[in-house]
Structure formats: C-alpha cells, structure tokens
C-alpha cells in the first residue's frame, strides 16, 4: 500500500505550486541571510516567516488538495483499499511533500548560513508546523463536504492560531494579573503549536530577558531537557490527534 503514497507524492510534486512554494521559501531565507549582518537576526526574521506563512500555506494548500482529491479517493475506495490506510497514505504523501519543500526552502539556506543549534531548531519547528497544519487541514476537509466551507474553516483555524489565541492569552493575563500565572502560561502555550514554536525560538535567541519574570520561568522550563521533550511530544500530539479524529470521521463517511 506504499504505492498510494507514491501516487499522491508524484501528483503533488507534479503540481507547480509546491515548486513555487519551495522557491519562494528559499528566496526569502537566502535574502534574509544575505541582508542581515548577523545570522541571529536573520533567524528571527525567518522565524516570523515560519510562524505565519508556513501554517497558512500548509492549511490552504492541503485543504484544496484534499478537496480536489475527492475523485481519487472515490476511485481508490471502490478498489480493495482500506479507508484508514488510504487516508493515512494520502496524509503521508501530503506531509512528505511539505517536509521536502521546507527542508529545501528553509533547510538549505539555514545549513549554509546559520548552521547553529538555533537554526536547526527553527528548521525542525518549520517542518513540524507544516505537518501539524496539514493534519488540521485533513480534519477540516473530512468534517465538511463543501469545499468553500472547508477552506473557510482552514482560514479560520489560521486566524485563530496566529492572532486570536494571543489575544485570548493577553486577556487572561490582564484579568488575572494579580495571580502568579507563570505555570499556567506554560500550559496555555501548549494549546497553540505556533506559540509553542515562537516562545521556544525566542528563548533560543536569548530574548527571554525581555519577558520579565515569565521569561525566567520559560527559560527554566524550556531550557530543561524535560521541558524540551514535553514540548516536542506536545507538537507530535498536535499532529496525531487531528489525524486520528480525521480517520475516525472518515471511516463513517458516505461517498
């Protein structure tokens, strides 16, 4: 059944969009590294790209792709192919193509100009975010049958994770300003993979001093091996949970 992944992968790679995306990513990365005088600054700039553009592209492209694959899915399911396997394979193909695009578009410049620990963390985060948001796109496209709604839902997810969530966190912070919230802040961070990456990266480039006491708590937590392992596991969960729910829904779906 690896064959299905192969067909999905060929199909996506034949699609010019992925190529264009890779070129744009590497264009941005290379110019940041060339324009900024220190690689640390360039990494910060690149981090913003990773935090906003990658989830957006990943969500929108994956949702569109999955809706356009409706015929392929229908064809496959009238053949001796298991639903669960089909969806997993399609997801693997999709995720793999994003990994390839990110590894080339961001990985290559990072390896050439900023092959530091921070650079590698950023690359890892970029890859994880791509895969996580493809998984969320998969869920959105399995839940709604309507293409426009599905893509709308994907965009809403992006707005939520990129902007609204931070607003909510700020609101909570101000409302409960009298209480010690450092621990709670770490927990809240886990609820948003974008925030998780952002805070993790900010700590990597030693900006924690800007965040006061919370920064110190963050530093202590994310600097420890336990904290890093937990953060990584949470990122993996962000990928697995949408995937598992999507497979469950897909198993019950009529075509």
């Amino acid at each position, binding site marked *: 059944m690896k064959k299905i992944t192969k067909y999905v992968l060929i*199909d996506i790679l*034949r699609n010019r969009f992925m190529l264009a995306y890779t070129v744009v990513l590497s264009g941005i990365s290379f110019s940041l590294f060339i324009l900024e005088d220190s690689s640390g600054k360039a990494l910060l700039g690149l981090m913003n790209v990773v935090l906003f553009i990658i989830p957006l592209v990943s969500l929108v492209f994956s949702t569109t792709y999955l809706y356009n*694959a409706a*015929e392929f899915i229908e*064809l496959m399911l*009238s*053949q001796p*192919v298991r639903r669960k396997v089909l969806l997993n394979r399609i997801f693997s193909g999709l995720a793999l193509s994003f990994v390839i695009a990110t590894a080339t578009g961001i990985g290559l410049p990072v390896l050439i100009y900023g092959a530091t620990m921070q650079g590698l963390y950023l690359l890892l985060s970029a890859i994880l975010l791509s895969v996580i948001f493809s998984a969320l796109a998969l869920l959105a496209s399995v839940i709604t049958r309507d293409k426009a709604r599905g893509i709308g839902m994907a965009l809403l997810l992006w707005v939520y994770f990129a902007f609204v969530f931070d607003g909510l966190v700020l609101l909570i912070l101000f409302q409960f300003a009298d209480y010690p919230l450092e621990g709670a802040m770490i927990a809240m961070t886990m609820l948003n993979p974008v925030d998780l990456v952002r805070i993790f990266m900010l700590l990597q480039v030693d900006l924690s001093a800007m965040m006061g006491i919370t920064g110190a708590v963050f530093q202590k937590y994310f600097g420890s091996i336990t904290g890093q392992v937990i953060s990584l596991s949470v990122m993996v969960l962000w990928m697995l949970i949408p995937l598992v729910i999507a497979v469950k829904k897909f198993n019950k779906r009529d075509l």
Partner: protein
Amino acid sequence: MITTRNICKNFGKLAALSNISVSLNAGETIAMIGPNGSGKTTLIKTLLGLVIPDKGDILYKGQSVLGQWKYRNSIGYMPQIGRYPDNMRIGQIIDMITDLRKDDNVQVDMELINSLGVNRMLDKAMRTLSGGTRQKVSACLAFMFHPEVLILDEPTAGLDPLSGEILKDKISREKDRGKLIMITSHVLSDLDDLVSEVIFMEEGHVRFHKKVSDLQAETGEVKLNKVMAVLMDPYYDPVMQ
C-alpha cells in the same frame, strides 16, 4: 454469494434504504430496476462499502463485510458517473489500479481495453474525456481483474450503440463463466437477453425480487419492458392473470 440483512440508510429525513434484505447468488445476472431516486445506486454503494448503512449487515460468502476491504478484491465496479483525477492520463489510471490490484499469477483481462479502443487513447488526460469515453474507462477497469462479482451501474448509458453492444457481449460471456452480475439500467431492452432475476425497487424498498422466467409466466409477456409495463399497471392484479 452476497446477502444483505435489513439494511437501513437515511440521508437526513430521507429513508434511502429501508430494511433491504436480498440474497444474490453466483451465476445469476440480476437487474435492479426502479424509478430515479429509488435507492438502487445507494444499495450498490452500500455493497461496496462506499456508503455506510445505519443498520443491518452485509455478508459476502457468509462473512460480514461491514468495514472490511479485502472482499473488494473480488468485485469489479462500474460507477454510474465515473469520476477520475483530472490530471491523470487514461494509461496512468489503468497502470495505477493494475499496480494496486494485480495478482501476479493471473494475466489481466485486456479484452475490453482493446475492443473498446481505449488502448488507442492511453495518452489522453482524464479531464478532456467525453462522458462516453469515461464510461469506457470505467468498464475496462471493472472487468480487468477477473472479479467474481460485477456491479454495473447504468453500464450502457452514454455509450455509442457499437460500444454498448461490445460491452453487452462481454457481460454475457462473463455471465456464462458463472459470475454474479448486478446491473442497473433504465433501458430495459438492453437487459433482455442478459438477466435471470429482477429486483424492483421503489422509495428505498425492494418491492419484489423474482426470477425473470417467473415474471414472464406471471404476466404472459416475454420482453422485459412489456413485463415491467404490465407489473407497473395500476390496475394489474396478479390473481386475475
């Protein structure tokens, strides 16, 4: 060979299938007849596992196949409207399905690919195909892997008369090999020499499931369209015949 037990399926408030219990035996060629929206395609899709029934069970050779997939190895399905990935070519689709389904010990059945002229169009992209050509591709795929069961949803709709005849010949030869064949069609004259049983569906119910010979005896007509016309006559009373 295939038995359904009390299958129910609702789409919202619409009862698409209500308590369908039929048993389909190897060697029979069964026509599913019924008005539009009577649940024929839904029943077929349920047998294939494309539609999940709300209640009931489907048995293939005595085993429940709800949520299973291996049994589809023995089914060739020709959908009413074949939907294929737009950017693939006919040859790529055929290769892909062959790649997925091929049993290395058995030669694939290339007969229809050659006789319908699909072999001369392998480079055509699916999005450029007419409805009839799509239908030909669907037919080729359904017959390629020597399935024990053939499920054909409106096989001749959209085909030119010549291709329609080629397909009917093929169906009739498969029938002689003892396969179970299910056909839905609105063109009853197409089914005349092929079918041995009729399932008549209406509003999600199976109204009757009878042998063609019995129906012919019952109504005194030979041609299937006449038989159905008599049965559909609101003043028809079987006792009077």
